[in-house]
């Protein structure tokens, strides 16, 4: 949008330099107070969203005791515990995003186009709405009750197969365990977003494809997938960001067993565990950076996807 329109009342049109008739000039509008209506909102955003972000940005380049430095940014890549925290966060996010996207897509396909009765769809979408909101501390405890040492599934396996999976070296307090927990809120989100996209595949497109002699394979390869691809990828990216910023679930589930970026930042807030406030800021900045890329990718893919959903 053009910024000029915001300040239009202030910058009055140029006084007649080209000799136009006076009537041709737009009348000078009185100063408009319209913007006051949205001022509180923007003030709030500046104070509590932009200033904190900018402060993180500036302090990322602050030396211990003051002064400018790039060392904090360099340290993110050099210090092995910080690098491994990023690696672990990226890994969990990538795995649960891909897994959630795959499983969620199959589920959404099953209830939208898979020939299941109507109630299955309503039912699944309702529960996806609930499950995608079921995260944080209660979710962690739910999985402790499911797959933990005395969990229901653990005991069922023990009763049926006579093996204690935890004695066999299985544990949920590791990378795969956390991924299983994250999947609980990841794939329902995929279902929620994919279902409307799949509904958007028009019957005419399939019929057109069939009239031209195309098979189901042709329809999916040349019509449906290209149309759905932006939505698919976009949602996978969204799931990635969803997992990357997660803190409560991981904290309650693993305590400090798993070295995730969010966990390290949380510890840094509670006490300067990195012994360098600037480094903490740099880690936070790294998260904002990765999340920004994620969301830009999502926004771009969304725009592409919306081409077909008019």
């Amino acid at each position: 949008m053009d910024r000029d329109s915001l300040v239009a009342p202030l910058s009055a049109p140029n006084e007649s330099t080209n000799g136009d008739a006076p009537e041709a000039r737009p009348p000078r509008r009185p100063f408009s107070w319209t913007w006051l209506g949205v001022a509180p909102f923007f003030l709030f955003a500046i104070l509590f969203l932009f200033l904190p972000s900018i402060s993180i940005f500036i302090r990322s380049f602050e030396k211990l005791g003051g002064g400018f430095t790039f060392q904090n940014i360099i340290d993110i890549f050099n210090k092995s515990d910080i690098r491994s925290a990023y690696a672990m966060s990226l890994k969990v996010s990538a795995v649960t995003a891909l897994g959630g996207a795959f499983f969620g897509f199959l589920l959404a396909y099953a209830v939208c186009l898979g020939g299941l009765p109507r109630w299955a769809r309503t039912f699944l979408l309702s529960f996806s709405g609930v499950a995608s909101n079921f995260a944080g501390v209660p979710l962690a405890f739910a999985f402790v009750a499911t797959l933990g040492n005395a969990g229901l599934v653990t005991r069922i396996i023990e009763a049926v197969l006579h093996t204690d999976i935890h004695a066999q070296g299985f544990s949920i307090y590791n990378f795969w365990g956390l991924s299983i927990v994250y999947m609980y809120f990841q794939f329902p989100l995929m279902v929620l977003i994919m279902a409307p996209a799949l509904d958007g595949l028009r019957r005419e497109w399939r019929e057109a494809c069939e009239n031209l002699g195309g098979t189901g394979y042709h329809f999916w390869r040349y019509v449906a997938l290209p149309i759905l691809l932006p939505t698919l990828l976009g949602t996978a990216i969204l799931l990635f960001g969803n997992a990357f910023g997660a803190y409560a679930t991981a904290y309650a589930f693993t305590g400090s067993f798993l070295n995730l970026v969010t966990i390290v930042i949380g510890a840094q807030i509670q006490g300067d565990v990195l012994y360098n406030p600037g480094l903490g800021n740099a880690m936070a900045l790294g998260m904002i950076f990765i999340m920004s890329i994620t969301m830009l990718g999502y926004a771009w893919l969304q725009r592409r996807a919306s081409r077909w959903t008019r």
Partner: protein
Amino acid sequence: MKRFPVFSWLWLFLGLFYFFIPLFSTIEFSLRMLKGRYTLEAYRVAFQDPRFYTSFGYSLLWAVITMAISLLLVVPTAYWVQLRLPKLRPYVEFITLMPFVVPAVVLIFGLIRLYGRPPLVLTTTPAALIVGYVVLSLPYMYRSVDAGLRAVDIRTLTEAAQSLGANWLTIIKDVILPNLRVALLSGMFLTFAIVMGEFTFASLLSWPAFGPYIEEIGSMRAYTPQAVSVMSFAVTWLSIAGIQWLGRGGASGVQTAGAR
């Protein structure tokens, strides 16, 4: 004759298993406090703890304040943008999506570093907590209200009211708000669900709330945390059910909440 959709059913059942097994396990686990039989002992213990009530009460308080501030910020803005400043829409939308870019733990990090020292100290009051919650609620509140505003022709309604001589108070109170009732309630329910289960902000700012309370008893007791988790889940579930009930007939699915 149509084939029986084997794989569709298979995926559906797998999905529903994933949904229900942890829920069922949590409920089953919460009933197992006394050896050898199912009792509500864990719930009795949970209800005996006075801190259960105080933390729940605090979360209720935070939720009510957050809903009020979020409404006050979002409704006039969304209305005004729709009516007078449509050019600002992309900026407002961008801001409401910021919480997706700045994760809760990073936002709280920034807030503590910025408002933990003069000139403006907020971290010693619940203000920082409420601010965080309002930010979390922005995407859901705005989308909900904006969808509500688009669904009715707000400009015509406003102009009709004006031409009948209504003042702004009357327009807002008797024309706009009644039309937005469902949208506002959805946004409020979602905000309520988010705040009631929130952990990150309250824990890192050290304010009493339900989320940190559950986490804390998790490290002290067995079985009761699961009982409280079931109750927390019920709160979320009721909020979402409320939204779906309000939005019945509409095409909208329930949006997902933040605060992981």
